[in-house]
Structure formats: C-alpha cells, structure tokens
C-alpha cells in the first residue's frame, strides 16, 4: 500500500526509531539544550560532554515521530568524537541533503544518507532537523529552547 514511502521509512530508520541509540540522560554533560516543535508539540532534550573542542559523548531524550527519533538517534551516533568545526560542517551537509536532496562531493554523511528521502516531504523536514537544531544550540551555549518555527 505504501511503496512510495519505502524511501522515507527505510529499515534503518524504522530500527533507529524503535530502538534509538544514545537515549537517556548523560551524567557529567557540560552543554545541554531543549528543542521543541510548537506545531506538533514534540519536545526533546540533548546533553553533550565536550572536552578540548571535541564532542566526547552525547545523549538525548524525548518523544516524537519516527523521522524525528531516527534522525536524532543517527545524529548522536555520527557526532561522537567530532570537533565543533566538523559538527558544523556535517550539519550543513545534512541540512542540504534533507532540504534539497543534494549531496556535496567528499561529504561526511555516512549513515545519515538514509534520511535523503525527507527532501520530498517538506512537512517532515523540521522533524528531521529538531535534534540537530538542539545540538547546535547546546554547542553554542544558547540558553533559549530552540524551536523549529
């Protein structure tokens, strides 16, 4: 019935949404931020431990749709061990991927590529971005909760 959705809801995404990685609080976190999508009411919290400009560890908690959960889960996997600059670059690559479907040469997306189908569902872009926006806000030390709006 839903062939056209197989691209968006790939098995990897279903797996991550059902069993999200790095889920829960992080003891000893030195940056955290809240994220919310005011249109749907979804909320999340992200915790990062940074040292020497490097994301040593990060975890998240919250509840929302499969796209949001899978994206947040995959993001936490891919940000571990990255410098702030690398995180920023990856965010830009990811943003381009899910808003336009375009992949830049020599990219660092790795597993994040499974989310490329989101670009054909404009209403779901903010679901895929919520965790990222919260992570960026935590790294920038922003005290205000981030919003997708």
């Amino acid at each position, binding site marked *: 019935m839903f062939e056209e*959705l197989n691209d968006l*809801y790939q098995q990897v995404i*279903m797996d991550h949404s059902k069993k999200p990685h790095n889920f829960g609080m992080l003891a000893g976190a030195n940056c955290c931020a809240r994220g919310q999508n005011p249109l749907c009411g979804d909320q999340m919290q992200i915790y990062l431990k940074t040292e020497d400009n490097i994301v040593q560890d990060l975890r998240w908690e919250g*509840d929302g749709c*499969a796209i949001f959960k899978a994206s947040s889960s995959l993001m936490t996997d891919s940000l571990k061990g990255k410098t702030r600059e690398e995180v920023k670059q990856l965010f830009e690559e990811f943003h381009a991927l899910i808003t336009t479907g375009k992949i830049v040469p020599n990219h660092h997306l790795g597993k994040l590529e499974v989310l490329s189908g989101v670009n054909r569902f404009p209403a779901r872009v903010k679901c895929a971005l919520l965790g990222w926006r919260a992570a960026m806000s935590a790294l920038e030390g922003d005290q205000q909760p981030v919003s997708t709006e």
Partner: protein
Amino acid sequence: MNQPPSLSEYRKDFPALHQQVHGHPLIYLDNAATSQKPQVVIDALSRFYQCDNANVHRGIHELSNRASAAFEGTRERAGRFINASHTDEIIFTRGTTESINLVANAWGNQFVKAGDVILLTEMEHHSNIVPWQMLARRTGATLAFLPVTGDDGLLDLSRLDDYLTSKVRLLAFTHISNALGTINPVVELCEQARKRGITTLVDAAQSAGHRRLDVQELGCDFLALSGHKMCGPTGIGLLYGRLDLLETMTPWQGGGDMISSVDYHESTWNKVPHKFEAGTPNIADTIALHTAMDYLDQVGRDRIAEHDLEIGAYAYHQLERLGKVRLFGPRQQRAGLVSFLLHNIHAHDVVTFADQQGVALRGGHHCTQPLMKKLGVSSTSRASFYFYNTTEEVDRMIEVMGGIQKFFGE
C-alpha cells in the same frame, strides 16, 4: 412529495472534493480545521468583486449602496441564523479568535478586576485560553479550569458547583471540543452561571456549521463563530453579544466607521454594533458568508447534526474494532470527529502515510496543548467529518490505518 436529496449528493457542489491526491481520490477528513466551499460561495465572492465592489457605509453612489445593503443584509441573516433577538447583536470579526479577543478587551478591561476569576475548561482551544491569560495579566485576575474526566473527554460537572465561586466573573467554554469531539451541555452550564450572575461566552467554532444554534435557547451572553468552518470564506466570523451588555462596553479598536464624530482631541463612538467594527470591513467574505448560511439551511442543519452523530459513532466503532488504538472523547453522543492514537505510532507518521493514500487527516496537538499534557500525550491523529463525508470514506480510512499498523509491525 419529493424526498430531500441524500447528503452525499451535495458532494457535487464542492469542486475541491473532486481531485486526486498522490494518485488516489481525495478523502478530506480535516473539516474541523476548515470545511471545503461549495461553488455558490465561491461564485458569491467573485460576483461581488465583478459587479458590486465598493466600500460600505460611506458612498452615496449605486455600487456603495449595493455593497452596504448586502453587507448589512448578512448581519440580518446571521441574526436569524443563530436566532439573536436583535440584528445589532451581531458584530463581524475575522473569526472565533478575534471574537474572543474582542470580548477579552472590550468587556474584560472594563468589568474584570484584580482578584476576579475567569473560569474556563481543561478542553479549551488556545484561542479560548490565551486571550484570557493576557486579560489576567492586565487586570490581576486569575484563571481556573473546570476539569475534564480523562480519555472519555467529558467535563466533570459534579465539580461545577465548587468552581462557580462568587469570585468568578466569566465562564467561557467550547460548545464542541475540536480535540475530543465532546458536545458540552451549553444550556445547563449557562443556566448555572446565570443563576450566580456570571457572564458566559460560548466558543461555537466547531458547532456553528454542524447544528442549529439558538442563542436565546442556549442562554449565553456571548457566542463566537468562524465562517470558514461552515462552508464560508476564511477571514470572516462573528461575535454575538447580548445587546444590553454590548451597550455597556467600550470600543477596542479605533478608526473609521466606529465613531460618531471626531475632533483633534476627543471622539464619540458610533452605536452598537458599529462601534466594534473599526476600518473597512471584510466586505466580500461577509457577503459570501450570507450565501454559506443559506446553503447550510438548504442542506438542513438538523440533518447535518444527525449525520455527525452517525458518522462520528461509526468511525469510533470501526477504529475500536481495528484494535491497538487509543481513542479520545466520549463513546456516546459524540460530534462528527474522532481523535486517536495508533499504539506505538506517532500521529505525524500516521498523517504522512494517510496523505500518501489521499486521506487528509490532522496530526498534532490541535491547539489544545494543555489538554494534551493532561492526557499525557503530545499529539493525536484526528479525522473530522462534514455532511459530504460518507461511511465508505471512513471504511477507506480504516483500511489505510490497518495498512499503517502493518507497515510499522504493530
């Protein structure tokens, strides 16, 4: 004698219903957000701009006379639509939200004082919460909320007496809950408030296009509604207010039309209802609202109400039969909408999947975040029906829901 046409025959009047979405026939089940528009309403809009367009209440020329007559004619029609005792009790606004804001300002600023209580219910739409929060901030009044029982979505009327204290100045509540499908006992609530000298406001956004409304029978002091949920255009709605109350209120917006005379330092106000309608009004949409009201009465509001009860009960029952579903709102006597969650599947995913099959649902908090928090959810999926929806469409929706459960392995 001729039988009235079956309700599904009215589908032909709605051009937007006849289209394919993602390769499937559109099944439009988001009527609580906005209804589709019949061709006669669309025609009324273009006819006004093509033939009669002019400003109202100003000109002496022919077109202005026509526009003014049609505009004021809608006021008279709206008065009959809700059985107001006087045409001047109808004030045109942009919709329910603006109507409530009008009361919160023009009535609230004058009559609500520090220490007073504004009583709402736990199932209110943001538009019947936030204007009162702003009024409370301005005046030092506080808000109280009549509790909802739980997933069955009923007001806990056994607590009504405790909540209607001598400090309560206003009771404002929704007639039909957009998030639960609950139909609240307006007559009883207004009567209890009236006995204690408490002013009442009814949010009729979800009921106005779905059943007969008689403000005198309901016994409310104010009633707010939106045109776009009842076959009319967006951007037009109205506030009903009891004439003696409106007479005591001061304007909330200043400008042209709402004055009787203006000096550089002082002005005097026009009479009710014009003193609450500053500036050039939404003329074309108001006139098309007249057509929408005529159209609804041609279909028959009692028939629409009956159809709501039947299709709401049918959808509730079929979802229950599907299983692994959490349903919200009352089991019996519900309005024509169902609010639900498929176990372990988020509403946003449900709505995306349904959309791919041409089924338009709403997923989210339905502008009732406090209620969602109380029920312990962040969102629900909602299917909301109108008289042009059929049980076959409900069956198709259920089939799609079953497909979604399968896809998610539930």
